């Protein structure tokens, strides 16, 4: 940064120094002034077509667009303090509203619509058009994939076109026709089914491009947003879980310059379905007389501890690479003292689905978020070998693994099966203790992505019944075994992990923040982008 030339300018009386080449719009953001804009998006090339970001620059005769004008030394820029610029922006909004339907009550974007926001902020209170003036009308078009196009609402900012052309690298969208007849056209023989095409819905500043999956599901103001990490693959895109009334209704990307920029793939967007599954275990279960019966936590944990105390020799841990790093570490700690075989398996899809315009961003073939975390903590991708070992093992502990394809006689040899999971597969019915765990939306925790970036996710909703986070269960179990104190939070679990594992040295939830830190960089302060 130091060798870069910097310029100082004043925006609405606020003095700010930015690197040379920064646009006025970005500089204003840093000064805390939001210049209204539609076509500009930090993740896309600049087009300068919407004319919404007009600002007054002292000494320049005409208004300039903030998104394409570089900040220069000594400039005096007026955004909200300039009557001329305000008047121009009001004019732009008036033009946009000539043909924009006033259907906010039925529009999915209402509440998070930039047109709605800016019109309320600085638009005209009344139209100057006659109420009988016929607005342009085009029927709703299905773009294929998950995207629906409502041309009436389109303000032709071309963000979607630029995303497909320059970021996704698939030229399927364009601006067809001219003038007031213009609309977003799609290639006649193709569909908008690119694996990353769902981003156009997020990019659209108005309700013109809609997600068919989310259509009419919730209003924007009903949603709570919780920072999380996508569980779709090992890329570890930062996401927000949008929840309403204890169910996750959609997953949207959360900007992180180091990982996913502003984007996420359509596969990741569908992961919310798994978070709302209804076939969950709601109470701890213990084996009594050949059947599993519901019990309370104290009783169940005591039983599990008794099993662990009463056996020695070899232990097999079958874990899911979707379990949190904290849980994976604590499981190892619980089985300390046994000769341990710790293994996971990961679902692999054919090939990767890269986003062409962003280097290193791709829907990865390994479809689990914490493969790197499990590997760092000494778990091996040798599931079959571990199953073989399970035949003779004294104890088998399963953590969140669905045991698909595993038959009960594979695990029968041990007799001591402890199952920590969300749902109860038939195989797990032979377990002596079943401990219900929460899923990614219901607990705090962290994942390590394929680049070794440790990233936190936060609890978005409550878990079903008595289900508890796996780190809580395992820390209670450790306490029961007399090898530690029960932990109160995932942050404490992570502290213990960071103290014991070299790769996580010096890290804490505080230092991770919400953007994450690469392993081995724990002590270096991360500059958040």
């Amino acid at each position, binding site marked *: 940064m130091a060798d870069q030339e910097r310029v100082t300018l004043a925006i609405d009386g606020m003095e700010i120094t930015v690197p040379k080449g920064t646009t006025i719009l970005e500089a204003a953001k840093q000064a805390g002034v939001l210049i209204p804009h539609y076509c500009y998006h930090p993740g896309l090339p600049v087009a300068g077509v919407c004319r919404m970001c007009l600002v007054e620059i002292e000494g320049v005769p005409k208004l300039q667009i903030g998104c394409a004008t570089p900040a220069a030394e000594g400039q005096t820029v007026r955004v909200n303090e300039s009557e001329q610029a305000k008047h121009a922006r009001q004019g732009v909004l008036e033009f946009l509203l000539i043909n924009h339907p006033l259907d906010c009550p*039925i529009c999915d974007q*209402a509440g998070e619509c930039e047109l709605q926001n800016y019109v309320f902020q600085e638009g005209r209170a009344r139209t100057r058009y006659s109420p009988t003036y016929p607005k342009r009308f085009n029927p709703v078009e299905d773009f294929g994939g998950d995207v629906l196009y409502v041309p009436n609402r389109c303000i032709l900012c071309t963000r979607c076109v630029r995303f497909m052309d320059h970021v996704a690298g698939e030229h399927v969208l364009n601006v067809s026709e001219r003038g007031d007849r213009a609309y977003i056209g799609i290639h006649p023989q193709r569909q908008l089914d690119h694996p990353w095409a769902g981003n156009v819905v997020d990019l659209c500043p108005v309700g013109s491009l809609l997600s068919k999956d989310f259509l*009419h599901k919730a*209003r924007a103001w*009903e949603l709570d947003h919780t920072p999380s990490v996508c569980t779709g693959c090992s890329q570890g895109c930062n996401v927000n879980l949008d929840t309403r009334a204890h169910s996750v209704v959609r997953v949207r990307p959360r900007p992180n310059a180091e990982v996913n920029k502003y984007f996420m793939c359509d596969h990741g967007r569908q992961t919310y379905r798994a978070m709302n599954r209804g076939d969950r275990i709601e109470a701890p279960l213990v084996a009594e007389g050949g059947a599993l019966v519901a019990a309370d936590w104290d009783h169940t944990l005591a039983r599990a501890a008794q099993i662990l105390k009463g056996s020695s020799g070899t232990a097999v841990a079958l874990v899911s690479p979707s379990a949190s790093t904290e849980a994976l570490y604590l499981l190892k700690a619980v089985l300390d003292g046994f000769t341990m075989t710790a293994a996971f398996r990961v679902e692999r899809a054919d090939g990767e689905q890269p986003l062409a315009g962003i280097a290193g961003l791709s829907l990865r073939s390994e479809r689990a978020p914490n493969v790197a975390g499990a590997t760092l903590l000494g778990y091996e991708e040798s599931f079959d070998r571990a199953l073989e070992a399970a035949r003779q093992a004294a104890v088998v502990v399963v953590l969140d693994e669905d045991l698909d394809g595993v038959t009960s006689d594979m695990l029968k040899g041990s007799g001591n099966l402890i199952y920590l999971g969300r749902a109860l597969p038939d195989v797990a019915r032979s377990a002596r203790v079943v401990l219900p765990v929460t899923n990614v939306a219901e607990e705090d925790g962290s994942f390590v992505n394929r680049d070794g970036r440790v990233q936190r996710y936060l609890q978005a909703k409550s878990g079903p019944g008595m289900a508890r986070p796996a780190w809580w269960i395992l820390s209670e179990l450790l306490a029961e075994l007399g090898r530690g104190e029960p932990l109160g939070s995932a942050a404490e679990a992570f502290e213990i992990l960071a103290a014991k594992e070299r790769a996580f040295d010096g890290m804490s939830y505080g230092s991770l923040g919400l953007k994450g830190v690469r392993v081995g960089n724990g002590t270096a302060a991360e500059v958040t982008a």
Partner: protein
Amino acid sequence: MAIRVVVVKRPEREISYLRAALKGMAMTFRHLLQKKFTMQYPEQRSTDDWSLSPRWRGTHRMLTDEQGRAKCVACGLCPQICPANCIKLVPGEDEVGHRYPLIYEIDEFRCVFCGYCQEVCPEEAIHVGVHYENAEYERERFVYDLERLCAQTHPVSTLWDPSDPKGE
């Protein structure tokens, strides 16, 4: 200490009820001959002097369009504004792509009849009604579904005077 009872001798004129009774009867007979104010409910529901105010806020009514469909577009504003949280709304889309309420229920027991739902409605669909007499045999019947709300025929409330919306 023994209790002593003293019987006080009063004049006959003072303790006789006759005078008071006659006074009362005179009052009664005087009213018998005067104009009657009692409304003969339920045979009579309003009088020349008295009727429900046009701004009365009673049980709801959903207005319908020319085809008899509810005017509601399921925008979700009434469940949002409702202070009693008594409106349940699930939006859906019909065969021509119009947004409409799949489920629209109002729990009239929970309702506090504030009229916010009517005020916030962008489609002038849901209204509070100028209506009383809501007795039912079962509690469940007080959850009005969309069909029932549309079938109501009573007049709807005028929350404000249209000629003087600010009440000045």
